[in-house]
């Protein structure tokens, strides 16, 4: 009997193919990065992406199905979410493009969730209803999942703001030093040029 349960569990883990991957990667300028996944039809998938740093904080996103049909296409988006349930089993691809940018690298966060979260082993295999304890602990688990999700979004927003602030800090320093040098050069230059005007006149007068 136990072995039957185990076989059912293994079969379920093979068929269910539930996976969620969160990746943060750097997209160089003029580059396109694609991620592929084989998805069975009927599995609900969610794609979430956000540009964390780089340039104008925008990226082109393209989601294509197995027959190269376009499921989702956005130009120059900062963040977005796309939910879809595929009608056909096959290889789906998600492409991020930074081809419109000439010199800014972008840091992109992707969260690709295929199917539901895999259940704890043993849960969901009962034929009887769950007790109150079990169902309230399930509720707590779902709430905690949602807290972790909010935390992730908060972290990304904070990372974006912090990197902007660090960029600004650096730029202020360069600007201050650059402008100081500029003022000094112009001040000395003006005096030199004025002196030059009068010196020429003097030598011209002397020539006559």
């Amino acid at each position, binding site marked *: 009997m136990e072995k039957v349960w185990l076989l059912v569990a293994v079969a379920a883990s093979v068929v269910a193919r539930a996976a969620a991957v969160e990746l943060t*990667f750097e997209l160089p300028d003029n580059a396109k990065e694609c991620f592929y996944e084989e998805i069975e039809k009927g599995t609900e998938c969610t794609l979430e992406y956000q540009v964390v740093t780089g340039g104008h904080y925008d990226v082109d996103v393209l989601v294509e199905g197995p027959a190269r049909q376009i499921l989702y296409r956005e130009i120059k988006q900062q963040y977005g979410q796309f939910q879809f349930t595929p009608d056909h089993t096959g290889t789906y691809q998600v492409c991020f493009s930074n081809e419109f940018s000439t010199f800014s690298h972008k840091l992109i966060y992707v969260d690709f969730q295929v199917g539901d979260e895999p259940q704890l082993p043993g849960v969901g295999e009962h034929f009887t209803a769950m007790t109150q304890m079990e169902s309230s602990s399930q509720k707590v688990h779902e709430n905690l999942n949602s807290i972790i999700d909010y935390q992730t979004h908060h972290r990304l927003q904070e*990372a974006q703001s912090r990197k902007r602030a660090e960029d600004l800090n650096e730029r202020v320093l360069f600007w201050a030093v650059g402008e100081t040098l500029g003022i000094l050069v112009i001040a000395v230059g003006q005096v030199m040029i004025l002196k030059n005007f009068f010196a020429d006149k003097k030598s011209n007068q002397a020539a006559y």
Partner: protein
Amino acid sequence: MTSKTFLSICLILGVFCAFSEGLYFHIGETERKCFIEEIPDETMVTGNYKLQLFDPRTGGFMPSSPGLGMHVEIRDPDDKIILSRVYSSEGRFTFTSHTPGEHVICLYSNSTKWFSGSQLRVHFDIQVGEHAIDYANVAQKEKLTELQLRVRQLLDQVDQIAKEQNYQRYREERFRQTSDSTNQRVLWWSISQIGILVGMGFWQMRHLKSFFEAKKLV
């Protein structure tokens, strides 16, 4: 075969089946692909990967390439290498962070070619914190009932949330310091710029006045 062996074999098979067909991407043989994970300290990160070499004869990817290896290099936020090893073409790596911050995980094949060889397909899956814990394994090792396992999962989740909140406080402090520094720099720069302008103005006038006096024009 004892039921324990059977259970462990089934679990191992289940684990392998679950990740061998996950998300994948293509890289060149000599190319490096890096992923960044911003994590608090004492957090476990597990990565599963599978490397496949392009087979020009069939136009597809070979199901397994035993000769190929994957070099995994992990750097901590201070740019120190905490893991740098060559693994086989399929496997998993784990590390635990000791400092909070951005860890960089770089993958590249140990191919000895100098120019970009053929394409590689890399199946990759990365799990952080409580997602990295294999509850089936925990249940079996500690003989927990379902409810106990669920409570253990909730405890791990809450632990991760607390760590992340703590890390958030540290990041926010860094952000505040950066903003304060910018504020100070702008203030000092404005004052010094006025000072420099006034100073240069005086110098110019004095210098020109003495120049014209010397030229007997004034």
